[in-house]
């Protein structure tokens, strides 16, 4: 939105607009740490490739995301936004986005954003629905692009379309989780009010770019079953996303979250990391660097052997459950630490999850078997009948965002530059894409990395033509085959 086109924004919901000034200061600092996004703004300032794009974003409403949102608008897009997690919003970031760079708390002129830290599940899905409609001032108009993290926005459109087609929404009472019950209740209401709403929203959408492993997994399932309504770009599996965000981002923010939540000294403690994928690798490394002894659990023999070769003990959870002090889930799978496990833990063992969803730790089981003593926001002590307690971080939701501030700006600049490039790619070359899941071509992945080199003082060596010919790659790249694992 340009400064001349001044109008007061009323179409948003955040915790406290007075936080906008603080948020704007932090955005300014973050812009310096996000060179990929800022250089993308410069590169496409004149071309405005996202003009006409109506982007609905469902992604943690943090300071870094604010820089992404303002990159998308700088490239011409109209944007509506929600967080993809009830705890991950940074309220000052949300306020700054609502107010916008040219508005004031009294006269907000920014981007419609529906996000605050500590939403209820009902509020969360209400926000998602609000952001999926109401574009261009039209309460019926949906997005033509989705930028998703975890796939909740994509799921709402797909399930809505599916249930509208079936003419009925399943009974929420039979839902397998509390969250799905809320989800079905919302759809029941919306289908009753407008039986064609989600079908229409879905028809307008040209594509989705998906941020994370969990959402990507959902997309591949939909594509496999022929149910994907629009093309998707899997941003997660760009090397400059998954390797950097999952590995280096988690390495940075896991210990930060544990420290802010508990201030427990990690040196000398035994920590169990469940899962040794990219997130698990970063988590294990950060805990070890603090002086904790790290034990890894794995189901995959390759990852287990990797952990072993890096000097970690690899054990089964049940064999270390009563001796470890800290338990971190990173698996992307469900039911990793169950209430029976927590019943066997040491007094005041710390339990947290850094995987995307809150189903890795059995919080529902905990509610039945133990009593909750809230210590402070996102830190709960749960007391078992025998008197021992465990400390649960962020109610089992991703603790690096719930207890700390998530990935640092520089890491997110890599991820979000991929997102921005993927949005441009899918929006401007939509005809090239079928209703399948794609990854960004390697030359764009390499471009994202290139955009970040200057900021960290990297001097790249250039291939000479004869050297390039010798290994059979172009001088300007791409340098590796698609299957290369880095």
């Amino acid at each position, binding site marked *: 939105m340009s400064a001349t086109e001044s109008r007061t924004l009323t179409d948003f919901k955040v915790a406290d607009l007075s936080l906008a000034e603080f948020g704007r200061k932090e955005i300014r600092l973050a812009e310096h740490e996000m060179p990929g996004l800022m250089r993308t703004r410069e590169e496409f300032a004149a071309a405005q490739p996202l003009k006409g794009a109506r982007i609905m974003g469902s992604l943690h409403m943090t300071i870094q995301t604010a820089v992404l949102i303002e990159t998308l608008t700088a490239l011409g897009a109209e944007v509506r936004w929600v967080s993809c997690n009830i705890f991950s919003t940074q309220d000052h970031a949300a306020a700054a986005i609502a107010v916008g760079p040219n508005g004031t708390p009294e006269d907000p002129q920014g981007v419609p954003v529906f996000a605050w830290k500590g939403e209820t599940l009902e509020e969360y899905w209400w926000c998602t629905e609000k952001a999926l409609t109401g574009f261009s001032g039209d309460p019926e108009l949906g997005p033509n692009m989705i930028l998703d993290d975890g796939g909740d926005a994509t799921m709402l459109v797909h399930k809505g379309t599916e249930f509208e087609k079936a003419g009925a929404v399943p009974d929420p009472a039979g839902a397998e989780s509390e969250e799905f019950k809320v989800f079905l209740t919302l759809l029941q209401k919306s289908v009753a009010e407008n039986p064609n709403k989600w079908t229409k929203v879905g028809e307008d959408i040209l594509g989705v770019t998906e941020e994370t492993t969990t959402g990507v997994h959902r997309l591949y399932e939909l594509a496999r079953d022929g149910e994907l309504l629009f093309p998707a770009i899997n941003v997660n599996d760009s090397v400059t996303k998954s390797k950097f965000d999952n590995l280096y981002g988690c390495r940075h923010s896991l210990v930060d979250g544990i420290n802010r939540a508990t201030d427990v000294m990690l*040196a*000398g403690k035994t920590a169990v990391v469940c899962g040794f994928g990219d997130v698990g690798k970063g988590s294990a490394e950060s805990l*070890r660097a*603090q*002086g*904790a*002894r*790290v034990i890894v659990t794995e189901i995959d023999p390759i990852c287990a*052997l990797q952990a*072993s*070769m*890096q*000097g*970690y*003990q690899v054990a089964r959870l049940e064999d270390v459950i009563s001796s470890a002090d800290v338990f971190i889930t990173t698996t992307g799978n469900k039911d990793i630490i169950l209430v029976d496990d927590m019943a066997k833990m040491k007094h005041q063992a710390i339990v947290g999850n850094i995987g995307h969803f809150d189903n890795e730790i059995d919080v529902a089981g905990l509610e039945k078997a133990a009593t909750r003593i809230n210590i402070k926001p996102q830190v709960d002590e749960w007391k078992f009948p025998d008197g021992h307690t465990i400390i649960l971080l962020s109610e089992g939701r991703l603790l690096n965002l719930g207890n700390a501030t998530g990935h640092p700006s520089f890491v997110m600049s890599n991820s979000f530059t991929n997102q921005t490039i993927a949005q441009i790619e899918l929006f401007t070359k939509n005809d090239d894409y079928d209703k399948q899941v794609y990854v960004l071509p390697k030359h764009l992945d390499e471009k994202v990395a290139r955009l970040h080199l200057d900021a960290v003082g990297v001097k790249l060596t250039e291939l000479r033509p004869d050297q390039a010919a010798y290994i059979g790659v172009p001088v300007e790249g791409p340098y590796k085959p698609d299957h290369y694992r880095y």
Partner: protein
Amino acid sequence: MPVLRSIRERFGEQRPLAGITVGACLHVTAETAGLVTALTAGGAQVALCAANPLATQDAVAAALAQLDGVEVFARHGEDLDTYAGHVADVLDRAPSVTLDDGADLLVTLHAARPDLLKGMLGGTEETTSGLVRLRAMQADGRLVVPVLAVNEARAERVFNDHYGTAQSTLDGILRATNLLLAGRTIVVLGYGPTGRGIALRARGAGAQVVVCEIDPVAGLDARMEGFEVMPSLAAAERGDVFITVTGAPHVLGAQHFARMKDGAVLANAGHFDVEIDLGALREAAGGAGGVRVRPLVDQFRLPDGRSLNLLASGRVVNLAAGEGHPASVMDLSFALQALSVEHLVAGEGTLGPGVHPVPDDIDREVARLKLASLGVELDELTAEQRRYRRSWE
């Protein structure tokens, strides 16, 4: 060895050791040769024997024996009687200063040649094991000469034990066995400066490290560094490689051997070959000796079918299977030795009997010379900072 070289050059000009006889019982290696030539440059006569029969590099011994003012009594693999004879040969030269690595010269002097003690200026001791013996003598009121504890100088502690012994211990184990460390469980018995260095390097190579300790402070330090700490009997069941570095005897014994996994590797990085109970190991193998399966690897077959692999006959593995400390590390140790000899000679009996620390200015001088050789410059306190640190208000 740039530090020792610069000292040798100064000694050559100043001749501070003129007329002094130095008796040395050190590992006879190329690095030791650098120390010996520095001492002779200073004017000393040097008589040298080996602190460990397996550590002697015969070519070095031969080359040193060619030099003016140097006598060498050492042969690789010499037996215990020859070794004792060589120690006696050195003492026959009536040294006024001794250099020890394990205290054999000073202990033998006190026990067998008390007649020679009167004219002595003092000695230096290179290693922890030797200092343990000398302090025991002092506690019994038996030590009658001053000894400078070179091993406890800061420049020595930091470089020799933590960097030198630690790196070369793993090097020796790798050369002897060609084992991949990644994925293995390495049990480090003793978490002194050397044990700590070994543990950190083993972890860096991808090993899972278990530490055994008797000292609560060292044990806590290991734990806070993220290592698993447990009693050695529990560790015996877990380890693939065991490294003793304690200074104590029989750290690994019959009970440990009974619990170990088939194929476990036993190595000692402590000074003496007493840390692994070799008698118990032979007994566990039904009285039979080990079968040499590779140079420096003796395999002991236990009646239940397990095999335990002993490296370098339980002798200090970094020297016996590797090449000992890298020259740059020994450069600092021997620079301390050379300056300590100079200090003892210059002091002419002003130090009382007993174990003394190496003077701090020697420590600083060695580090300063080393930094200069690396081209590293330091900051200096300003006058204002100096004042601030001296004031109490």
